[in-house]
């Protein structure tokens, strides 16, 4: 078991490095910083000076991989690659182009996501395992077959459909849950319940049988 976990952890390293390299290539080579600047500065009254300034401020005016003008170790560190990609490995996410600190944003935004993901995982585990064992119990009978059919039907429907249908039926027609929104603290259950139920049902098809 320990060897398995270790192996998995080691596998993750080349994958992360690869993902990092590919995103670097996509974000800074395929799509140049000039493009990003223009996208951010908008339509009205954008001058080339403004673009240069925008790039300089975010460090996008530096060379990509090797800074020949710098001294010593700066030759490698004063580059876009080091600043934007290598730092990520130290969990230093820097600022987004809109000027917000990404680390702080993640800290803030993960709670609503976790409030849905964790109960969905736990309840889902309970329901899926029970359901799967139930089917296994009646293996070969008509119950097993109808269970499989149900799973395939559930699986064939797009996840988006469950969300829209759930919102439509429970929030719009029956007025039972808020359509959208979030509230921190224990009142969060009013917003979390429906997505969890929908998530569990939507996952039943693929998880219940497999």
């Amino acid at each position, binding site marked *: 078991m320990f060897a398995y976990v270790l192996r998995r952890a080691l596998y993750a390293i080349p994958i992360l490095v690869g993902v990092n390299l590919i995103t670097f290539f996509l974000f800074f080579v395929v799509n140049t910083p*000039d493009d990003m600047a223009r996208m951010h*500065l908008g339509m009205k*009254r954008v001058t080339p000076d403004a673009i240069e*300034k925008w790039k300089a401020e975010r460090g996008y005016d530096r060379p990509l991989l090797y800074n020949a003008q710098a001294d010593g170790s700066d030759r490698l560190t004063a580059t876009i690659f080091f600043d934007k990609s290598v730092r990520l490995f130290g969990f230093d996410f820097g600022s987004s182009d809109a000027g917000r600190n990404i680390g702080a944003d993640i800290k803030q935004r993960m709670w*609503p996501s976790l409030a849905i993901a964790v109960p969905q995982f736990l309840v889902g585990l309970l329901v899926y395992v029970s359901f799967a064992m139930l089917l296994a119990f009646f293996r070969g009978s008509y119950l097993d077959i109808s269970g499989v059919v149900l799973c395939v039907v559930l699986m064939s429907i797009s996840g988006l459909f469950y969300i829209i249908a759930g919102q439509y039926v429970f929030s719009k027609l029956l007025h039972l849950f*808020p359509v959208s*929104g979030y509230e921190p603290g224990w009142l969060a259950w009013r917003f979390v319940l429906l997505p969890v139920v929908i998530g569990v049902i939507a996952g039943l098809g693929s998880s219940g049988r497999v």
Partner: protein
Amino acid sequence: MEPRQLLIRAPVTLPAWIAGMLAAIAIAGCSEQPWNSPYPAWQAEQNILYSSFSERPKHLDPAQSYSSNEVVFTAQIYEPPLQYHFLKRPYQLEPLTAVKIPSPYYLDQAGRRLTDDTPAAEIAYSVYDIEIEPGIRYQPHPAFARDAEGRYLYHDLSGADLERINALADFAETGSRELVATDYVYQIKRLAHPRLHSPIFGLMSEYIDGLAEYAKTLKQADRQQQSRQAENLFLDLRDYPLSGVEVLDRYRYRVKIRGKYPQFLYWLAMPFFAPMPWEAERFYSQPGMSKRNITLDWYPVGTGPYMLTVNNPNRQMIMERNTNFHGERYPEQGEAGDIEAGLLADAGRPLPLIDKVIYSLEKENIPTWNKFLQGYYDASGVSSDSFDQAIQIGSGGDISLTPELQDKGIQLNTAVATSISYMGFNMLDPVVGGDSERARLLRQAIAIAMDYEELISIFANGRGIPAQGPLPPGIFGYREGQPGINPYVYDWTKHGPQRKPVAEAKRLLAAAGYPDGRDVETGKPLALYFDTTGGGPDDAARLNWIRKQFAKLDIQLQIRNTDYNRFQDKMLKGTAQIFQWGWNADYPDPENFLFLLYGNNGKVEHNGENAANYRNAEFDRLFERMKNMKNGPQRQEVIDRMVEILRHDAPWVFGFHPKQFVLYHNWYHNAKTNLMANNGLKYRRIDPQLREQQRRAWNQPVVWPLGVLVLLLALAMLPALIAYRRHEQQRVQAAQS
């Protein structure tokens, strides 16, 4: 045996769980609030307005912000010296923090005073002396907080001090101070700040004396400072004087403008010219602040009726009444019809009328719309998704609300936006551009073939009016009725303007040397290029439609679809041929539209806003004259001549002016659309009791289908239970035998 015992519980779990859910809902039902209310119960019947935002605003710093979704906030918080009158039309400026609307005096090159009637060409400088009201105070803010000895509490914070700080509200103390003229000067200086990107810096450096040089001075100063100290990044602009802008005394400041530029007054009504206290910049530039997202871009500091108290762009933004607001009263006068519309019911009441506004993040259209229908948002736009649910168009083209919305007492406001969406020809292009008669006829033919009436009805649900020229209604110079039509594209009939038949376009095309879409000289079919960006399914339909319009004239239209940046690049280099573009008015003056075709604003040559690169000597001469004229018959005459030149030359196919539709619930008052002013929030009023009543009436929970659902699930379990019984019996029998 053991594992199977466990299994028995499984079928019970689901119904039990749903029963639990029902119980939970029942508990929630004990509070009187509708179950589907997305807001906490204590907020019912509070004087709170609910609204939404779909994208987090990028900048709330008044030097940088230029987007319509940002000005929703900045215009309520920051107070420039002037504002637009809320009710009067045509749009009219009035003082906000200023004592009166400043009238400039003029100087020649040597600095000698000139009379007011001096011709514009002889005026070297216009000088605006602006006086502000005394006694206006800033909102409570930690940047102003001081201890008993008058030292600033939060201006030299260390890393340890900031440990427990995550939002602006975490600072225990706040303070305030009086608004002074220095703050206005400070903000104008910030337009040239080396670390900010003011979208109007390029434009303003042409007008405000010394601003361009000032940017260079600051850049150098900034570099020096950064080489000295890496950490404290506060660049105190008070140490660097700006020649064209000076403080006269505590309440007066002076702005020196190059030449004559009467439109400057309109800029004085925008947040770009709002005051900025130096304390705020000092406070926000401390190390560790931006790491916590505590910046001027996210937490504005102003004197306006509201202040931003919660800014969590991932969930909600809250504006609350500024406790230090200097006070303002609802206008006593409006235009004809305002009294009948109930818009003067609050005349003379102190503003603002609403205590708090909660903006919730709503990324999707459908939930936003449904929440509006349930009464959880007070106003709504009409997206194309929900258009059919909201609006019905009668046989005569008359627009009304659907019965469902009428029953709810919802009201509809429509207004033609002061903007234009047009199709431009690149005048540098050898085929469609240039001053030759041939190209002109070709452009005129295309202008007839592009059936914008159809475009508006298909792609905009009828929300727009075809443009007869560059000026939208509501802007001085626009003409209504027969004198206002574009005679090169329309005929006047008793039903109004009628687009000329395609046959006429074909005749023009033949005269241009392309009979049946073939070049007379070479015999080759005429192929044109449409440069565009965007690739969604909606765009595909629209592009197809445009191709069909050209096909009416047997012209092959090739779509050159690239991403946004490539498209911008083509426009900058002048390699595009035909393109679609738009403009939204900055201020209600014809100059703000006609400058889009002024030769010296050419995109390729001057990187200006003249995307068509149009240049006509006569038009340019008239533009320079018109720019400095007062609204009146003489100006109208010059504008008429300019518009006639444009219609004849047809550098644009004047597309259409979009129409805005806004829906309001019946508890929402003072909803007059003002396309120029963005600070309308302070005038709005809601009736929270009526809203709560309606919300309850519309959102009665329907529980019985849940019961049915539980029953159905139980029924579904039945076969399993029967099968299990049978199985057990067989085992018992097997054991017995």
